[in-house]
Structures are given as structure tokens and as C-alpha cells.
């Protein structure tokens, strides 16, 4: 049983989606996240355990390696895909309440900005950290964030921007959220964003990489 979890952890860490996927070469012809999750459920391992002892630690390893420049976007995305294959099998258990997430994370790329790869990577890593995700997409204004917060009270909000010229829109979104849901924790990130900018606009946390976002949110959840 534990062996299955170790294998699933490895499959997600190295981005092995299913048996037929060619990557990574060292896991060729072996079961991937898809098969291993099915086997784990059939073996009677609790879905919550599958999440906490395989998926979360695997994505945490991925996040750390990315932050240390040991891996890059393609490997991170493959791991996220493998995680997605596993999550797909776990979906009914999330829906039934058999798996409890740490909370909800609302994320979007801010108004005027269409870049979504960075936002997607953060979203996937936070999901892999055990959170439910509400992804609002790109070019998102403050009204949509406020509405999503109404539907998901107590959710943490993440704002992404890739341009210096759109980053400024984060300020308006933060202050609007502060009016409607003052207790909301807001984290921001993206290439031009800095800790100083975060402080200036009154956001709660600047995440220089996806892993830092996950670590900050884990602190909030604990």
C-alpha cells in the first residue's frame, strides 16, 4: 500500500501522466499517476491520504526544485499534468466531502493583461498544495474578484501581472477588495512585481515563485 503512494509521488514529481506517456524516460512503460491513483483507491487507501501523502509532497518537491532553478517550466507543467490526472480520479471524493481542502484560492491575471502561463503555474502548484481553485482567467477587473469572494467567503486571492504597465492595476483591485471583504488575504506575483510594490499597494504577500505562494498559504491554513 505504501509502495503505491511512493510510486504515485514519484510519478507526479517527474511528470509521468499515464502508462503510455513517454516522459520521463526513466519511468518508461511503468504506471503513471492515472493508473497508480486508480490502484490506490482500489487498494482502499483513503483519498485524503492519497492527497496528503503523495500529491502534496510531490508538488512541494517540484516547487522547491523550480525555485532553485533545478527544473524549468516544461517539467513543472508535466508534473502538474500528472497531478491533474490523479486529481481527476479523486474528483468524486472532493465533491462528496471525503477530501477536505485547506480552503479556496481565487486567482486571476489583472485587468489589461492577457498573460496566463505564470498564473496557471501558480494555480496548479496551489492546487497541488491541497487547495480548491477558482481561476478567473485573464484581464480580470476588481468587480469579478469581489463577486468571486462573495461566492467563496474567506477565500485567499492571488493577482498576477506580467507587464509593468498592467501591474499598477493591482492597486485598484486590492483597495476595492479591502472595501468589500477587508479580511481577505491577497498575494501578488509576476515578473515586474516586487516586495516593495506589494507593500505600497497594501497587498499581504509577494510571491517571487509559485512555491513561495504555496508556503505562505500553508501558513495561513495552519
Amino acid at each position, binding site marked *: 500500500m505504501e509502495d503505491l503512494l511512493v510510486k504515485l509521488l514519484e510519478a507526479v514529481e517527474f511528470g509521468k501522466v499515464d502508462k503510455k506517456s513517454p516522459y520521463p524516460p526513466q519511468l518508461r512503460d511503468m504506471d503513471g499517476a492515472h493508473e497508480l491513483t486508480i490502484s490506490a483507491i482500489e487498494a482502499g487507501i483513503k483519498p485524503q491520504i492519497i492527497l496528503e501523502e503523495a500529491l502534496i509532497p510531490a508538488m512541494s518537491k517540484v516547487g522547491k526544485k523550480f525555485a532553485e532553478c533545478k527544473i524549468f517550466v516544461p*517539467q513543472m*507543467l508535466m508534473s502538474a499534468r500528472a497531478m491533474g490526472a490523479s486529481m481527476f480520479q479523486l474528483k468524486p471524493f472532493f465533491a462528496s466531502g471525503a477530501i477536505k481542502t485547506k480552503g479556496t484560492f481565487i486567482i486571476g491575471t489583472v485587468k489589461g493583461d*492577457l498573460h496566463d502561463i505564470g498564473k496557471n503555474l501558480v494555480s496548479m502548484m496551489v492546487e497541488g498544495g491541497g487547495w480548491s481553485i477558482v481561476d478567473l482567467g485573464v484581464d480580470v477587473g476588481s468587480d469579478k474578484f469581489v463577486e468571486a469572494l462573495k461566492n467563496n467567503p474567506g477565500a485567499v486571492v492571488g493577482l498576477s501581472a506580467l507587464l*509593468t504597465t498592467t501591474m499598477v492595476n493591482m492597486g485598484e483591485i486590492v483597495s476595492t477588495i479591502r472595501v468589500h471583504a477587508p479580511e481577505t488575504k491577497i498575494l501578488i506575483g509576476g515578473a515586474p512585481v516586487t516586495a516593495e510594490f506589494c507593500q505600497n499597494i497594501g497587498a499581504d504577500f509577494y510571491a517571487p515563485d509559485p512555491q513561495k505562494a504555496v508556503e505562505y498559504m500553508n501558513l495561513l491554513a495552519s
Partner: protein
Amino acid sequence: MKKHTISLHPLGKELRVNDQTPLIDVLHEFGVEFPCGGKGTCGKCKVRLLEGDLEISAEQQTKLDLLGLTTDWRLACYSMCTGDITLEIEQFKHLILADETEFSFTPAFGYGLAVDLGTTTLVAQLIDLTNAQVMAVESMLNPQVRFGADLISRIQASMDGSAAEMTQIIRSAIGTMISQMLKKHEVQLEEVILVGNAVMQLIFCACDVSPLSAYPFHTSNLGIKILNTTELNWKFQVRDSVKFYPSIGSFVGSDILAGIVATGLHLKEEYTALIDLGTNGEIVIGNRERIVCASTAAGPAFEGANISMGMRAVTGAISSLNQVNGELEATVIGNTPAKGICGSALIDAVAILRKIDKLGMFGEINSGEGDILLTGKVRLTQKDINEFQLAKAAIAAGLTILAKNLSIELSDISKLYIAGGFGNYLNIENVVETGMIELPAEKIVKMGNTALIGAKMFLFTDLKITEEILKKSTLINLEANHDFQDIYVDKMLFL
């Protein structure tokens, strides 16, 4: 180190260079093209030696003999400066197009001026309109660079209150360049034609750039702009007018329109592509029916930004790397010790490191170390390689998505031109090796400055031609494509 003077006749330019400086290093910035890429086969970069000595290697002699060139002719791509010399650049007597043909034009009267207003570099040439000869050249760094290297930082600076100053300094810089040329040749200018990207156009024409700061990036100010010397505060006369040519769209400017004209892609039945590896990284694919274009964020890495020891293709930059007996051998622009690496050598480095298995398929340094020593003190870090991957993937994904838009395969493209500040130094085999351009090397042609060639052609052509091209052209937003993320990430790999 010993210094020499190169005098360019009849341009009236004097250049001080280090001993052993290859002529290609100093001539390309004035718009001299090396169509065969320095292989010595096309003869288009031939110069006439009017004074001084310029050694001929046995290899160059063979090439000169093949081309039927005698005594006072030299190939600029094969020559190194070892003493004071005076040269006449043959290419400036004709207008050579991207496909190596000579521009056929109807001679006009008087003199015209063509300006390539680049984000980083300004180049201007004074043209005799009776015979298309280049009479004078000037080149300088865009003085706006102190407001930031890339377009987004220029837009930001302009919105932060520097708009008027940025307009003033660019108008004044170009006015000064033209005045300097008119000092050497006291002639009456008929027309001044400027090309540049949309942001450069808006700033030069004193229009608001803020619409280009965020989605939907729309402004109605991108059409042709006709200006007069009084409003520009230029102290010389222009009989007809000063024209800034129209942009194709918000991030694809008249420099690309000029590139389209210079490559003739709008005239051909088969598909032709043009990639400008400048700051903006524009890509065009088209034929006489339809043209699609896009800009990518690829440029800055090739211009040295975000690369720890990256720099532009100027003196001190490694321009190419070769593997000789298992060792990396660097060629440095201006024959000085290497200070950094420019785009062409970055491509060489990655291609070679991948070939000798120092890099894995994901771009990882296989030794597990944080960086790789290339030569002297110049290193490439893991982060530099990742930056390169983002840039090459942007180009490769852009080509793929544009081809899909035309419902064609990449293999349907019969020729692809690469323009850019370091275009002359590119090793095409290495470009292909990195996966940046997924076409066979023999279909790829490198150029230096197609924008300047096109701007010169505009001096002889009717505005209708550009209107027709604009009608056929569509600007594609790459990121709006559903598959963009998958394609982009996929192209980051080295397969």
C-alpha cells in the same frame, strides 16, 4: 592596442578601430548587408580599396578569383584592418534587396533620406534619388534607452510624465544625424521617410502611447504621419515632407512593413516568412494573397537583456562560438577581450552545449552545476539558458500559430528571412539545432536590416503599395490561441 582609421568614401565617415578588427564588425551598423553571411560566395559586400593596405588571405584570394574581382577589390566579410585605409563600399552604389536581387526603380530627382528608428539603434542614409546610391550614413544609439531598454518601459516612462521629453530627444537626435550628413553633402532634401515600431512611431509623432500599455492595445493613431520640419524643429529644408510610415498594428510597425517590401513576400505566390530578432521579435508569414503577423516577447534575451553576461552586438561582445578540437572558440566583435555575449553567440552556445550533451532536453545543465564557463570570464547560468528557452519557444510557437492561421504547414514556407542587429553573425545551422526555427537551414536567409532597405525603397515607390499590403495583413494575438500554452511550453524543449 594599436588603432587604425578607416575612411569611408564618399560617405565622409572616419572610424577608429582596433588592430585586426574585421570589417564586418564596423560596417554592419551603417546598413551594409552581408547576404551570404560572410561565406565569401555572393561578393555583395565587396569594397574598393582606395588608399592603404588590406591583406588578402589565400582563402580570400580564391574567393576573389572565383568572383572575377581584381587588385583593388576586397571582400569586407574576409578582411581585417591592419593599417589606415580608405574604402568605397560598392553596395551603397545600388540597392540590394533581401533576395540578393538589385532593386529596379524609376529614377527620381534630388535626394531623399531613409531612417530606421529602432528601439535601440537609429540608422539614417542619404540617398541620391537619381541612382539610389547611398551618399552618407549615420548611426547612433536611440537616446531614449535611458528610459528603459524595452518597449514596455518606454511606454511606462512616457505615461509617467516623460512623454514630451522623449519626443523632443528623438526628434532632435534624428535632426542632428541628418544635419551631419547635409554638412558633408550640401543638397536639397526632397523627402524624409522614417520607419519604426508602433511605440517609436507614436512617441516621434507626439501621440499618446498609453493605449499600448494594456489590453486591448488599441489606438487609431497608427496611420501614416506627415510632418514638417518646423514642428520637428529641424534646421534644414525638406521640399516635399517628412513621413512616418504606417504601422500594421499595435505591436507590428512600419519597420516590419518595410521588411515585407524588402523581402518581396507580398509579391510571391509561395509563402515567405520574415522574423525580426530585434527587441520586439516580430514574425510575418505571407504571400501575395494574405499576410499574417505577430509580435513575441522574444527580443530582449537576444539583445542581451535578462542574460547575466548578455549584451548587444557591439565591440566586446562574443558574436559567435565554434567548437574546435573539443574546445570552444570565441569570435569577439572589434577583436577585443570578451566582455559578454550577444544573441548570435547565445544561440551558438546553446546549440553546441546541447550537441555535446552538456544540456539535457529540458535545458538543464547536466553536471548539476549552476553555470557553464564558455570562454575567458564569460559564463552562461542555468537561468540564462531558461531565458533563452523562453525566447526561442516564443519564436517557434509564433511561427507554428501563424502557419496554423494560414492553414499551412511550416514546410509550405519556401524561404524565411531573419533580420536583426546581430543577423549578420547568425549561424543558421545552430538556429535550427536549437529548435527556434523548425525549417531546414537551406530555406533560411539571414539579413541585417530589412527595415532600412524597405525605407529606402519607399523613397521610390507609391504609397498605394503599402496600402495594399496593409489591406492584406492581419495582426494575430498569439496568446489568444487556445493551444498557445501547450505549444509554447512544448517548444521550450530541446528535442
